[in-house]
């Protein structure tokens, strides 16, 4: 196996020249991005620039007009229906507002993918659901609660527990810390870090939160002008010359944070 193939093996997600448009309006134009095995990649961009669109394109929720997306080394265009189901077992998604099924309890929410894909006894499933609830830092009695009875932070944690139900290799997090207070957000960053290390996860995280980027991300990709304009560690971001990246990482808030 040569070096190039080995490097390809380590790319969990490979996006090349992606074009996504809604009608006349092009959202992403020639975007390329790699996500490597075992890393936490933070994806930043201004509001309405298409961060969520990229996530949704990778997940197959929006149609793309051009380019290729491969996940776990298989091109999503050429993969069969059965192959796609296999892929879906290997990724977990946490939506921005949780998207928990409102008619099910938290434990039942976590068991939805288990019921669909696995052959397990009810006792084991209850045990696993309780385990996931505990792993994301919720109290054990949260399992019997309905989503409408949870606070914003608890919903995020429950949604993460559901995303982890099948022990995925990669999780997509859409603004995991938005709407949380700084302490809750810091806890959540720690949680993602811990889970990533214990479970060997790869994390693709769309975020606005400078603290999350600084504390938990291995690499950062910045979206501007419909493509990825900068990829690298935080220090690379700070030295980037692209005007949007510059104003994001060296703007007033970012500098205030660095001083503080």
């Amino acid at each position, binding site marked *: 196996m040569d070096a190039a193939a080995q490097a390809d093996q380590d790319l969990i997600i490979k996006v090349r020249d992606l074009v996504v448009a809604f009608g006349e309006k092009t959202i992403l134009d020639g975007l390329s991005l790699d996500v490597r095995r075992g890393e936490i990649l933070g994806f930043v961009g201004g509001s309405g620039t298409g961060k969520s669109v990229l996530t949704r394109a990778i997940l197959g929720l929006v149609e793309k007009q051009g380019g290729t997306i491969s996940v776990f080394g298989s091109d999503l265009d050429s993969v069969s229906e059965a192959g796609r189901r296999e892929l879906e077992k290997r990724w977990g998604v946490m939506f921005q507002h949780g998207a928990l099924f*409102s*008619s099910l309890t938290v434990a039942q929410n976590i068991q939805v993918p*288990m019921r669909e*894909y*696995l*052959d*397990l*006894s009810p006792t*084991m499933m*209850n*045990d*696993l659901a*309780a*385990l*996931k609830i*505990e*792993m994301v830092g919720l109290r*054990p*009695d949260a399992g*019997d609660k*309905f*989503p*409408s*009875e949870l606070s914003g932070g608890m919903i995020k944690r429950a949604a993460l527990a559901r995303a*982890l139900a*099948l*022990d995925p290799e990669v999780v997509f997090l859409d603004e995991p810390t938005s709407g949380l207070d700084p302490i809750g957000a810091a806890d959540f960053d720690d949680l993602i870090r811990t889970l990533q*290390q*214990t*479970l*060997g996860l790869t994390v693709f995280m769309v975020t606005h939160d400078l603290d999350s980027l600084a504390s938990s991300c291995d690499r950062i990709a910045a979206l501007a002008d419909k493509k990825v304009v900068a990829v690298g560690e935080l220090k690379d971001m700070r030295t980037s010359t692209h005007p949007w990246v510059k104003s994001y990482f060296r703007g007033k808030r970012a500098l205030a944070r660095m001083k503080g």
Partner: protein
Amino acid sequence: MTTTLSNPAFEITCAQDQATIVLTGEWTLDHGRRLESIMRQLPVSLGEVRKASLDLKRLDRLDTLGARVIEQISHRLGSDGVRVEMQDASERHLTLIGAVRHRNEPVVPPRRSRLVELLADVGQTVVQAGQDLVRGISFIGEVVVAIGRVMLRPASFRWASLVTQLELIAFRGAPIIILITFLVGCIVAQQGIFQLRRFGATAFVVDLVGIITLRELALLLCAIMVAGRSGSAFTAEIGSMKMREEIDALRVMGLNPVDVLVVPRILALIIAMPILSFLASMAGLFGAGLVSWIYGGIAPETFLSRLQSVINYRHFSVGLIKAPFMAVVIGAIACIEGLNVKGSAESLGQQVTASVVKAIFMVIVLDGLFAMFFASIRF
């Protein structure tokens, strides 16, 4: 790099009171059932040992389920007095097994007997029905107060909303209501003629159809249709607003949700119901006349002149007098149920169902009360 799936398994080698257990294969979610049976078998097949070491060297893959099973096995052995240690476990495996250790025991909710639960259920339903009644009455009071407020300050009334609701309830609802009462008029006339023919009293079908349509049938069908069409829509609209905190938003802006959402809807219903009921009566009579002519051989002129002699103003007005009351009942129930929606999509569905069922039930009860009332005042 091999990708063949290898089943999880274990091999035990015993030496005196020591056992070495080698775990092999993929201890992952894909082999759930097999792992569960291993979890039950392994401690049993160990026999009398004092010390067991779990060898994880030949483990291909491990995920949370596998780790949980290993943790459970060592926990069970430990509680049987066996000393357990891990051998040749990689750093990653050890972290994972450590992470799945339950810190707190799962809580098992106490179980009550079936009888107690049944009795509690019945009691709860009765209390709830009583509360429903009280809430309904107080809600109607609230609406009356709100209407009073509107009368004092007509400029604050939401005319646009009233007109929109009128369009939705009356204008869009008219065709289906007219069609249904037309068909029911036809059916009642056909059955009447068929049964009365045996007594040679075919002509009395006009009395039968005329009175029943004007006094009861048109209004009841109309009320049931409105409860199904508009009542369910009110509950769903107000309920989804409640779910997304729009009602709270109205409140904090100093707007009373009853003024903004409920009053225009109920007023629209009060205006629309008599109109719809009148249209329904006419359609029912038209259907009856048509069937009498074609099936019963009663010429239209005969039908009309007999109708004129049988039906007086009272029969006609009974239907119209009842209509606004039905409107209030349907509107109030629909709005109360809408405001009772909790956070989930399931709750919205339940409340919409409850709204329609309760409205139809109450409409029929009210109709019965009116029948007794009109009979006793000989109207």
